[in-house]
């Protein structure tokens, strides 16, 4: 497949406005302004563009549900707060070429008839956020942003908000609180942000990768986009592969590509002599999959059917000398550290899980620790306030299922079985 989203991206020398326009940039604006906003939403719906931030909610449907009669002002938030471990696709979009993001926002905001858009950039991506701000100024000077853009009668203001820097700020409603200058705790989901979001106004939040697809869909049509995918998927996808592979990296491939192809063809497979223990398909908050799942298409529904989540589509690979307990503990520690501290199960439950896992990893686990972990996970996931804790316990729950014998050996032998393997290997 020919690269679509990454075609003109170059983190070492991102295109400025003239070069971007010379390569066909901002052409979608004319196409968009020729259409009624509803027609544009229809095209995105027909393209079956699903949210790339992790949840996979159909983008066109999200936009339609906001409603054309939503009171003004309306806001569009572009979520570029990529903080998921193993995920670095949005970073490439940001550093590779800011104008593609701006173009996507203008077109999407036009579809939503939103007059103000805020790009929420991860704190660690501040340099990228600053060049994005400069690119916005460039576009403003060129009349691509502002009032009556291109004589269309459409007004738009775009701002960059650089995050204070916490994982939870990526959560839709916590992000709204953060932009408002409040503590980034998630808000109740009723009323929905599309009704009462940023500053109490109708607000639509989309992941940046979702949005950058929109101009291409508009220029090439919904059918073209649907045909980009394979194995029943629609569109192109930025995949990341990291962990125990020879060539970790970012690959733009058809959605529906198998993990086998991603890991073994594009990421160069595992180191010589190493076997695949398992992988996490969509960022740290998704369930482990096993070698038997290598041929499942990397797409929302097939991965869900296999018992995990497609998430961000960013694979972390574990080989046969990696202790799955240690790997899971690492993830749980991350989530315990990033809990916003709002609700009890997440705030106090995750550190409890980390404490039990630490004890087992140190060879001091008790026989009933595994059932205790399962009991706690069964409460923490469903009973917490937002989607953070359900995602956080997912790798642990699946790890306990997939690699139970390794956990048990930690407890029965009093040490990590992988220590011996690694010592022998060395």
């Amino acid at each position, binding site marked *: 497949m020919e690269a679509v989203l990454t075609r003109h991206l170059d983190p070492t020398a991102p295109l400025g406005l003239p070069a971007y326009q010379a390569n066909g940039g901002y052409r979608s604006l004319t196409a968009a302004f020729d259409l009624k906003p509803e027609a544009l939403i229809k095209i995105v719906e027909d393209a079956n563009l699903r949210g790339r931030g992790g949840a996979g909610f159909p983008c066109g449907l999200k936009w339609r549900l906001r409603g054309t009669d939503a009171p003004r002002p309306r806001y569009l938030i572009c979520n570029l707060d990529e903080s998921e471990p193993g995920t670095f696709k949005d970073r490439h979009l940001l550093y590779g070429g800011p104008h593609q993001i701006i173009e996507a926002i203008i077109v999407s905001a036009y579809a939503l008839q939103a007059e103000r858009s805020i790009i929420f950039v991860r704190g660690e991506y501040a340099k990228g956020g600053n060049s994005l701000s400069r690119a916005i100024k460039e576009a403003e000077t060129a009349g691509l942003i502002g009032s009556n853009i291109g004589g269309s009668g459409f007004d738009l203001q775009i701002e960059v908000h650089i995050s204070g820097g916490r994982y939870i700020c990526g959560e839709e409603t916590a992000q709204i609180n953060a932009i408002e200058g409040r503590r980034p705790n998630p808000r109740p989901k009723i009323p929905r942000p599309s009704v009462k979001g940023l500053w109490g106004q109708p607000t639509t939040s989309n992941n940046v990768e979702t949005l950058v697809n929109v101009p291409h869909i508009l220029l090439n049509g919904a059918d073209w986009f649907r045909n980009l995918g394979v194995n029943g998927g629609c569109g192109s996808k930025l995949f990341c592969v990291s962990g125990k592979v020879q060539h970790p990296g970012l690959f733009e491939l058809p959605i529906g590509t198998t993990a086998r192809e991603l890991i073994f063809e594009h990421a160069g497979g595992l180191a010589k002599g190493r076997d695949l223990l398992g992988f996490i398909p969509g960022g740290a908050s998704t369930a482990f999959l096993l070698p038997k799942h290598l041929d499942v298409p990397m797409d929302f529904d097939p991965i869900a059917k296999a018992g995990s989540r497609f998430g961000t589509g960013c694979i972390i690979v574990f080989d046969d000398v990696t202790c799955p307990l240690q790997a899971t503990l690492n993830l749980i520690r991350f989530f315990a550290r990033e809990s916003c501290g709002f609700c*009890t199960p997440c705030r106090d*439950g995750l*550190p409890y899980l980390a404490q039990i896992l630490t004890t087992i990893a140190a060879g001091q686990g008790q026989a009933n620790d595994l059932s205790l972990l399962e009991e706690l996970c069964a409460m923490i996931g469903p009973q917490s306030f937002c989607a953070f804790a359900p995602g956080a316990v997912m790798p642990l729950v699946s790890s306990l299922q997939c690699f139970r014998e390794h956990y048990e050996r930690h407890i029965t032998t009093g040490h990590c079985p992988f220590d011996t393997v690694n010592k022998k290997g060395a």
Partner: protein
Amino acid sequence: MLGIIRIDGHEIPFEPGDNLLKVALAADVDIPYFCYHAALGSVGACRLCAVEIMSDDPDKVPRVAMACLEPASDGLEVSVSAPAAQQVRQRVIEFLMINHPHDCPICDEGGECHLQEMTVACGPAYRRYQGHKRTFTNQNLGPLVHHEMNRCITCYRCTRFYQDYALGDDLGAMRLRNEVYFGRFQDGPLESPFAGNLVEICPTGVFTDAIFRQHFTRVWDLKTASSICPHCSVGCNILPGARDGTLRRVRHRPHPEINRWFICDRGRYGHQYSEHTARPLTPRVAGATITYRKALIAATEQIKAAGDRIGGLGSIREDLEGNALLRALLNNLNGIFSAFNDPELEAATITAVNRIQNSDGTPSLTEMEQVDAALILGDLTAHAPMIDLALRQAYRRGAQLTVLHNGPTPLTQFAVTTLPVPPHEMGAYLSRLHERITASPASKDVQDESTAEIAERLAAARRPLLIGVVETLAASEIIALAQLATALGTDARLAYALPGANAYGAALLTLASRKTTTILEAIETGQIQTLIVAGTDPLGDTRLGSRWRAACQRLNTLIVLDCIATTTTAAADILFPVAAWAERGGTFVNYEGRAQGFAPAFKRLELLPSTAEVIADLVQCLDLYLPDAPAVLSEAFPGYQAPVPGSAGSLMPVHPLPTHIDTATRSDHEHHHKHWQAALTTWYGDEELASFAPALMKLAPTATALISPAAALNANIEEGAQVKLRGPVGTMTLPVQLDNRVADGTVALTRMALVQLGVGHGDLLELEPVS
């Protein structure tokens, strides 16, 4: 239309829009909870109120949901006792107890700890967590609230109260994960006048009462009784707690129309006056301590000797019974009685009460929370803190506040328009506002934009409130405010913050106007030989203190009844120490005209009768016949029934008040370039009783002369410069502080400074830089 939900078989009606937890609690069905609070609503943070909800579809499994976030809907089947819900609650308690220090035996909250109760009710009896506990460093939050962060269960109630409800900004949630820290950016006293509510709003022992802590007792050992706060005219319901003959603390007692869940810090911490070391506890005659019996005999002799040359001063902080009996005694002796010691305050208070009685009723605090615009005259935060809190709720709901003030007042930060008006110009300004509201559209000039804006805002409001602080207004201005309310139509509400806990009652007991002047002049001309003063300090008055001091020199006998040490008690020939408010029963009439009864929570070891009891004893010694206080009151107010302590209270019957009110504006209008208008600037802790509360007084602002930057520029005075102030009685030197909330030509001074200078609010004084 009401619907019905079923909780474990109990059928419970609900109002549409209510959540399951609110519905259940209203019906006395227990669902455990932490973060929910009726004043703060539901946030879904603690996850303790898990209940099981049956599905309409019998094939579907029931789901566990948080009762606080689940809207009640007709026919909903809910179970609190379902094992799945119990499991969730048990896990929540287990999680919350992971880092809790389990220090109940040494914790001040023990015995009234919501966490303790919930843990016993829902939690596991044994802990499974084997790891380390997190440890926090506590902060010094000032003299009123003690901080112990390790006990925190992160329910966010403190910040939701402090920031969201009371609109304070110096306490908040910091950090994240299981290290969320509730405190200030750095150590220092909490700035909110409502900070003490943290003690009650916190479900465990993170914020505890720092005063109670100094002389601690277990809460189950406290003697309590339904009482009424004596520190301002709002009449918040309180629950004093005492042990071993000493008052240890004060908490709120809910009144559905007044203070509901909260009280202000003056109400919570002002009670230290009754334990103050200077408090008179033994009767004194001619400077020597004496038994109560002998003091009665001495007083009886003097009263008999005086014949009808006797006067009596009641008080705006004395209860209805004490005032009424004193008045009855003086009537019997053909003497003169007044409940005030300052004619201007007398006129202002009677006028305000008169206007309230002639209006459709003054709004309660809960009604004030519902107004959509308010015109505020003066510093409500200092004179009626809980009215300030009610208006903060109105502001949160979108009400537009306009504040006309002489000096700084905290409510200006929430106002759309704030206008510093010199005391002498308040009346003229109100007339302009009145003209503007009543003028025909064509005749409305556009000269004064801010007046037009304020007038239009009030006229456009559906439920505007007009409220003034009586202590800093003249009677004519009080009338002008009432006229504004009339001009705005029937939806406008009128209220006044009165100058004392029983100022309304004191006004009702005043049968003729200018009684205070009559008494003062009678003393000065020698027509009064003996003066009985009950619960007031005329000799320490700001404007008239020196005149009273001089006049009292001419008295044969000054008999004083009080529970605090004042200038007047110091000058007393015969002193009867009386019971403080928590030590006696009585009745106060609040700013609404609501009579509320209070009962004694305890007795001290010393013999300390109430004012009414002392007067009743005097009556007996004088061989007079007088009915008791309830009979005197029902005779004075036909239809009056003494309100039962703990009840909601009852409105005083409408009572004819003297109509001749001296509306002459302030005495001295000549303007001299050296003359400035004095304005009383005060703070929420400033009140006669509360000024004897040492902890509260640690927060008192330092004495300065506050003037506006423009006036300073005009007079060539710089910030921090020393100025000499000269009043009719004395002089003093103070550093200047510039504040643009002070009106032009006005110098805002503390009460102490006014007393020393001998000027009242609005009086003129001289100010010159010290070279």
